[in-house]
């Protein structure tokens, strides 16, 4: 059984937000507009945090894409009263939309703030409703949603591998954010396979994890050269 993980090379990230756009298109994320966005009701399964360092004129911007860390010890899971969020055998932190009753406990318990709640019925202005991804369900009002590591792409790759009677190859599964990244900062693969690209990169001396001290065991590894 694979154990999916992601490596994001911060030294390569330019903060272009192509990943954010790709994620919106792939995962049927609605665009809520300025007013709702101001109330904090926007959907960004992946967002690019901008960190400004230094004083003018010696200013420098750093970028950090933040998405669901698919924690092995996920704080969101034990607080769900209906088991709508759980850990699946592949190590994905799953959200079952049709089981969710919208208590929002999970989002409140998430240290990374990567869970998004549907405060209203999601809608798409014409003709955007025609580009919805049929492999991903449209969420309804009152349910929580989050990054799935593009589970529909994982399933598709496994389906294809099954047809060809082989295992999923390294690099065959690529989430939308990784596919769109122009600098190839995002790598995705099986952490359990020691020969996979992600496993190799996660052993790098540049590897760090976000808020690792909380003991959440995040499965997204950030690469950054110490200064």
């Amino acid at each position, binding site marked *: 059984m694979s154990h999916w993980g992601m490596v994001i090379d911060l030294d390569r990230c330019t903060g272009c937000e192509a990943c954010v756009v790709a994620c919106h298109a792939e995962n049927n994320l609605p665009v809520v507009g300025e007013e709702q966005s101001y109330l904090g009701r926007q959907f960004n399964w992946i967002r690019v945090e901008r960190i400004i360092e230094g004083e003018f004129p010696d200013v420098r911007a750093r970028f950090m894409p933040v998405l669901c860390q698919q924690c092995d010890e996920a704080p969101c899971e034990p607080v769900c009263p209906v088991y709508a969020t759980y850990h699946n055998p592949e190590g994905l932190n*799953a959200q079952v939309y049709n089981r969710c009753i919208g208590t929002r406990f999970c989002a409140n318990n998430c240290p990374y703030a990567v869970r998004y709640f549907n405060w209203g019925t999601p809608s798409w202005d014409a003709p955007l409703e025609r580009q919805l991804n049929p492999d991903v369900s449209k969420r309804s009002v009152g349910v929580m949603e989050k990054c799935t590591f593009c589970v529909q792409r994982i399933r598709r790759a496994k389906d294809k591998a099954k047809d060809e009677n082989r295992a999923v190859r390294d690099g065959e599964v690529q989430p939308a954010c990784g596919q769109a990244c122009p600098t190839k900062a995002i790598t995705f693969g099986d952490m359990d396979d020691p020969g996979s690209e992600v496993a190799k990169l996660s052993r790098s001396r540049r590897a760090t994890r976000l808020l690792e001290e909380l003991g959440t065991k995040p499965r997204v590894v950030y690469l950054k050269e110490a200064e």
Partner: protein
Amino acid sequence: MAFLYTLTARGEPKTFDCEAPMTKAKASVLASFSLLLFGALAVGFARRTARAPEQPIAFNHKSHTIDRKIDCSNCHEYYNQQAAAGIPSVRTCYTCHSRVQTNNSEVKKIFAYYEKKQEIPWIRLYQMPDHVLFTHKRHIKVGLTCRECHGNIGESAVAKREVDHTMGRCMKCHEAKGASIDCLTCHR
């Protein structure tokens, strides 16, 4: 262990006084509630009885599959390749019926749709809800037959929904056959 913590109720639940005599207000509430319940049941029953809705054309599966030995895949073309098995288009019907059974009154209805360049508005018997992602292909590849989920439809004269596609039914089969019962298999 944290699961257990959240599941443990804090404090005793309040018990209801069942012995108290029924007041007028209580009785009226009960009456209106039972009326609602009856209404809901009636609606449910009406939906359940539409198992064999009247179709725009009285299509007969039996005369195609049994009498003329036509395979399901001739009309439901994508059953082993894609998520949807495919309801045949009017063109598929016309391909054969432009030459066979042309005087049949039901077949003449096909011509009417074909000439209007309109699809036949078949009424679906099975429709998965939006939050279920089902694929015919995978189920056919593991060796399931149409009959296991669609009953006797292929050999009956009138198309009828004989099997209820509930989650319980899916789960029972998945468990028995050792298929994945992870939520993400069908819900994502």
